[in-house]
């Protein structure tokens, strides 16, 4: 009899405590500004000092500071999460359990788990970088028009190749036509270079990995040694291509951070991300609206030069005269919306008596097999193509 009584008492205590905690949970989930919690899932370590995760973490911290959120209390991070559905789901459960109101996932492979969990936790906002899935309420994706910044860096490379009298420009890429992200970057860089030097040829060496310092170095060596490239652009994490350019007395455009400090005699400028632009917007929206209205407010985000989501590092002293003026003009054309990269018209830069002149010329956008992508004077290709389905190299690009 005693056993039965104690069992009932125990059960009663458990039931009461369960309800109490559930009650607490509901209170915590309240979208008051005071206890707004941001969650983030990173592919690498939050302590990185360069690279992709570093750029996101820096942006997130800056955005939260701008919004007056204390990152020690209001930011919960799960890092070193592999692109594995189970690992991502666990990370999301952990963050949801810590009362997060919005969860950012920064790597492409998180896509399926984030989609599923967004249905399970309808009161949490899920925001996925580089992805293509979304719903109408609490799950969106975000990325930026990095191709615009790459076009500008291509201009710097074009000026350099013109000055050196060498039309061979190299490009170390993580991947080639397999991903629209790398493919559109290469094409934009090529268009930028050829806007200054119409005879420039972009030799692309892909390393078939998102990050591999040694392969990045070797690829840059091959481009300079065997293809005689004088400028090396890159879409890969490390500064190795810039270091190689410096060792061999050549030049280069980095990526993700200002690599002038690593290669002071070689680096021209680098396209960079300002992730804080989106993070500030997203967090502010989530703080002031219920999760179900997040997507109807923010939508799927694709910011460019206008929003400041992408940009260029300050031009180094290695750049040729005229570069800054040409870049300023091209930037203005994109920011004002008069022109965009993948359209049926091209920017043409000419230098006359030290002055840079820009003209917009109707000219068909051709791939490197001569097929017409956009007729002369035609409109820009769809954002969907740039983000998702661009799988051809443009005129002047050679895969090596």
């Amino acid at each position, binding site marked *: 009899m005693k056993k039965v009584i104690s069992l009932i008492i125990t059960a009663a205590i458990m039931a009461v405590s369960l309800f109490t905690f559930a009650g607490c949970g509901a209170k915590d989930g309240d979208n008051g500004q005071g206890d707004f919690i941001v969650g983030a899932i990173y592919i*690498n*370590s939050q*302590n*990185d*000092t*360069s*690279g992709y*995760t*570093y750029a996101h973490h820096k942006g997130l911290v800056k955005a939260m500071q701008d919004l007056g959120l204390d990152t020690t209390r209001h930011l919960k991070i799960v890092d070193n999460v592999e692109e594995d559905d189970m690992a991502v789901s666990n990370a999301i459960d952990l963050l949801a359990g810590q009362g997060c109101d919005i969860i950012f996932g920064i790597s492409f492979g998180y896509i399926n788990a984030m989609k599923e969990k967004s249905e399970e936790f309808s009161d949490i906002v899920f925001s996925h970088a580089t992805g293509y899935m979304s719903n109408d309420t609490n799950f969106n994706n975000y990325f930026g028009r990095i191709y615009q910044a790459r076009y500008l860096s291509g201009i710097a490379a074009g000026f350099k190749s013109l000055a050196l009298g060498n039309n061979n420009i190299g490009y170390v890429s993580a991947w080639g036509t397999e991903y629209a992200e790398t493919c559109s970057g290469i094409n934009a860089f090529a268009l930028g270079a050829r806007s200054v030097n119409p005879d420039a040829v972009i030799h692309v*060496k*892909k*390393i*078939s990995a998102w*990050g*591999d*310092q*040694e*392969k990045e*170095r*070797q*690829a840059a*060596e*091959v481009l300079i*040694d*065997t*293809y*005689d490239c004088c400028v090396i652009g890159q879409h890969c*994490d*490390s*500064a*190795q291509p810039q*270091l190689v350019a410096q*060792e061999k007395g050549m030049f280069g455009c980095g990526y993700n951070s200002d690599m002038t400090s*690593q290669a002071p005699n070689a680096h021209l400028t680098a396209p960079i991300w300002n992730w804080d632009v989106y993070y500030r917007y997203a967090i502010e929206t989530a703080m002031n609206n219920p999760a179900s209205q997040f997507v109807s407010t923010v939508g799927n985000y694709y910011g460019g030069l206008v929003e400041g989501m992408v940009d260029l590092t300050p031009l180094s002293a290695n750049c040729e005269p005229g570069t800054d003026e040409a870049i300023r003009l091209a930037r203005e054309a994109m920011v004002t919306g008069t022109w965009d990269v993948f359209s049926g018209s091209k920017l043409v830069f000419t230098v006359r008596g030290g002055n840079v002149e820009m003209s917009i010329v109707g000219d068909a956008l051709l791939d490197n097999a001569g097929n017409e992508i956009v007729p002369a004077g035609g409109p820009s290709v769809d954002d969907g193509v740039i983000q998702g389905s661009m799988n051809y190299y443009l005129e002047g690009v050679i*895969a*090596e």
Partner: protein
Amino acid sequence: MIDPIELMTLFLFSIIVYSIPLLYGTVGEIMVEKSGSLNLGVEGTMAVGAVIGYIVGCRADSIVAAMAVAFAMAALVGALFAFLTVTLQANQNVTGLTITTFGVAVYFFIGNALGNKWPQFQDSPGFAEGFSVIRIPFLSDIPVIGKVLFSHNIMVYMAVAIAILCWFYLNRTVPGLRLRAIGENPAAADSLGVKVALNKYIHIMVGSGIMGLGGLYMGLNMGGTFEGSNCWINGYGWIAIALVIFVNWSPAMAVAGTFVFGFFNTLRMYNGALASTFPEVLGWLDDIPAQFFSALPFIITLLVLIIDSLRKNKRSGQPKAIGLNYYREDR
């Protein structure tokens, strides 16, 4: 387009540059394994030697200091391994894996802790000078061969010298033969008065030190930059362990064996150039996915293992007592 002879020269040169860390790792691991210990911690040992050797080298502005410290620190990691497996009789496989995790973590710990204070290679002119190409009169001027074989830095020549020395030591000297006896049958060696534990300690430490030099070479070859989540060693330690089997535990064979591995590694980068320069003979190289090149060395190792186990009268160089701890009182 580039001159075919020049292209072949560059290709062969690149193979050597990128094979050398493997040679250090493999020869070091052979020294360890010949004493009967299987050390799976090559990756971590190389990482520790690399990062500490590099930083001291920058501070002292000297490649000799860098090499000495890389060797010493890696040997210290080896001493840790020896203490755990020889003295405390811990499982060698588990200890080796622990050393890898530990060593790579030390690398990131130091790199992240230094942050912006991470020393730049170009700020240490003496150090950089020490790692630059040494031209050998006459030899370096021979066409093709001069560039491929005789236009390297000191650490490349040293790697080959160490490999040959180790081969000589293991096959032609009394202490070397004693060491091999320990690896084959420690009890028998012990009964002949060979100091098993002492010998194991010494050779595990020396082998680990050699690995550390390989790590330093990798770091210097990368220009000494610390990149957040990407370690210099990048899996080379694991390839070195596979190579030990591939070259049948012979340091002399290791010289050739590492170049076979390096060949495929470099082919992956040069395939486009080779295909367009020799379209009739090598045009097919363009169609092979990069992933296949990365997998090839391991496929070859698998084949070697299979062939090796099928052979009847085998003269395997694998020490009989490898992986087994020797406990004197068990005799």
